[in-house]
């Protein structure tokens, strides 16, 4: 904010209190993540007595080795990579194709198209009719059901359109037309190269969505070889847990197995989440801009 304003003592106290509160808040947000990271690197047998975990207890990477041995996890990891790359590519192409014409002032029918697009944000057929459509299209239990039905998010389309409106001056388009450039070439050769920041934001938004999605895979995929990582994670983290909650632990051996599995859970969370937590700080400088542009009402 403004730095040339002189601060009174009260204001200095308020500032100090504010910084303290924010730091405490940050610690609360961060701790669960750090806990999982440390737990994944700990000796599973020692985890059971762990209170607050401030460093890995009995450091070892046994759990990670178990994750890497697991065929299901590897296969699912590959599937998720494929779905994320293909899905995001389709998202970017389709969203750009939808957003660009709407950003052109002279586009006749802009209001009509904007309406039929945005209306779907507020009203939809619902889960069952959508399910039946996909069934009828014959894409159930194929990769297409994960990448086509969500090809365009209206919200992202609006963000992109607003970006084009604000950052691509109409004069540029006019002069390209004078030079004999058609709309498609204009989009491909001039608009897109000028739009890398918004495309980076879109890659992140859509990419994260694909990486993390489980519901579509759960209702549409029955072939285990096609399962994405999140479905396998659900089995390891949640379904087993629910079964154990209802079971009573009796013998020693069972308890041993449980502990080993406990370590595997933490490791698999780290392995599945790590790529995203690496990528997002790199792209984070674009967020504020992207969100700001999209937040402006259009």
């Amino acid at each position: 904010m403004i730095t040339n304003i002189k601060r009174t003592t009260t204001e200095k106290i308020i500032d100090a209190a504010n910084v303290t509160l924010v730091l405490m808040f940050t610690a609360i947000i961060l701790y669960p993540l750090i806990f999982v990271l440390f737990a994944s690197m700990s000796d599973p047998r020692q985890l059971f007595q762990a209170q607050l975990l401030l460093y890995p207890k009995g450091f070892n990477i046994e759990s990670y080795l178990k994750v890497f041995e697991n065929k299901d996890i590897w296969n699912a990891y590959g599937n998720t990579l494929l779905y994320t790359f293909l899905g995001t590519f389709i998202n970017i192409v389709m969203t750009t194709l939808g957003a660009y014409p709407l950003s052109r002032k002279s586009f006749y029918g802009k209001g009509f198209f904007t309406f039929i697009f945005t209306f779907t944000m507020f009203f939809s057929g619902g889960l069952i009719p959508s399910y039946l459509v996909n069934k009828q299209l014959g894409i159930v239990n194929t990769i297409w059901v994960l990448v086509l039905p969500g090809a365009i998010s209206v919200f992202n389309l609006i963000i992109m359109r607003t970006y084009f409106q604000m950052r691509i001056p109409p004069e540029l388009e006019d002069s390209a037309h004078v030079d004999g450039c058609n709309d498609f070439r204009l989009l491909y050769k001039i608009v897109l190269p000028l739009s890398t920041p918004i495309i980076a934001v879109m890659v992140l938004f859509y990419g994260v969505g694909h990486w993390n999605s489980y519901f579509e895979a759960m209702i549409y995929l029955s072939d285990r070889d096609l399962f994405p990582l999140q479905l396998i994670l659900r089995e390891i983290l949640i379904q087993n847990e629910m079964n154990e909650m209802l079971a009573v632990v009796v013998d020693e051996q069972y308890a041993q197995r449980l502990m080993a599995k406990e370590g595997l859970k933490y490791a698999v969370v780290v392995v599945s989440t790590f790529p995203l937590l690496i990528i997002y700080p790199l792209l984070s400088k674009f967020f504020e801009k992207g969100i700001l542009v999209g937040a402006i009402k259009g």
Partner: protein
Amino acid sequence: MKKDGSWTSNLPTPNNSFSGVKKKLKKNIGLYCIIFPAVLYFLIWAYWPMYGVIIAFKDFLPGIGILDSPWVGFAHFERFFNSFYFERLLRNTVAISLYTIIIGIPLPIILALMFNEIRSKRLRTFTQTISYAPHFISVVVVVGMILFFLSPSNGLINNLIEMFGGEKKNFLADPASFWHIFVWSGVWQSIGWSSLIYTAAMAGISPEQYEAAYIDGAGKLQRIWHVTLPGIIPTIIILSILSVGGIMSVGHEKILLLQNGLNQETSEVISTYVYKSGILNAQYSFSAAIGLFNNVINFSILLVVNSIARKVSETSLW
């Protein structure tokens, strides 16, 4: 496409007759080709399901198709309204949503205000970046983490409770805890990300306003109250309309994962019920009727809230 004299002019043509329309259509033909795939997408995956909604008024049999299935009027709706579950589903859906909204609107605003008052830019960027990290974690992992921390045998929360002399508790088997677990884990995951849009709005407030307020003798808190807050009111209103308009759609993805036989009494909501009766039990028409009921209520609330906002504050979605 060939170079054409009409490309060069961006001036609106005064001619509004039929030939004028034809000329405009022709001039934009390249753009129509570009937008075509997107239109096709919406027709197939947004409007076709809307047409498919008529199965809510029919006894849909997959073998004979939508058109030939017999009409039954409002029978499926009546069955739902009279069912044992109706009241419970409605109560849980509305309660979880309202709880989420009441907590979810003010907290990110407060957080954004706090970020905005941090003077060191580096500290600000650092804390902000951490605050939105949980947004990038999948629901499955978040629920997995909830299970780690709430585990009745060795979860952190129960360990702490025991340390302070309390009794361990199986939170996820307790219907009374479910709403709190759902809402507060949601706060952890989304508060930073939600605050981002307010931070962006605050960045748009002109520094002169702060200087003017300062010259008028406004202290820090007064500047926040009289400059920063009014500056983000339109953003607050827009986001509030959207969240109130989504009141009937609670995050079924997370609920499905958190739910178990013991907490069903408070965890079953309309959208999870639609999934179970429709997808798992293949009662397509009945389930589509419940979904339609849900969407219509949602949409109506959105229309009402939007028009109230337009009258009261002159800010609205459209």
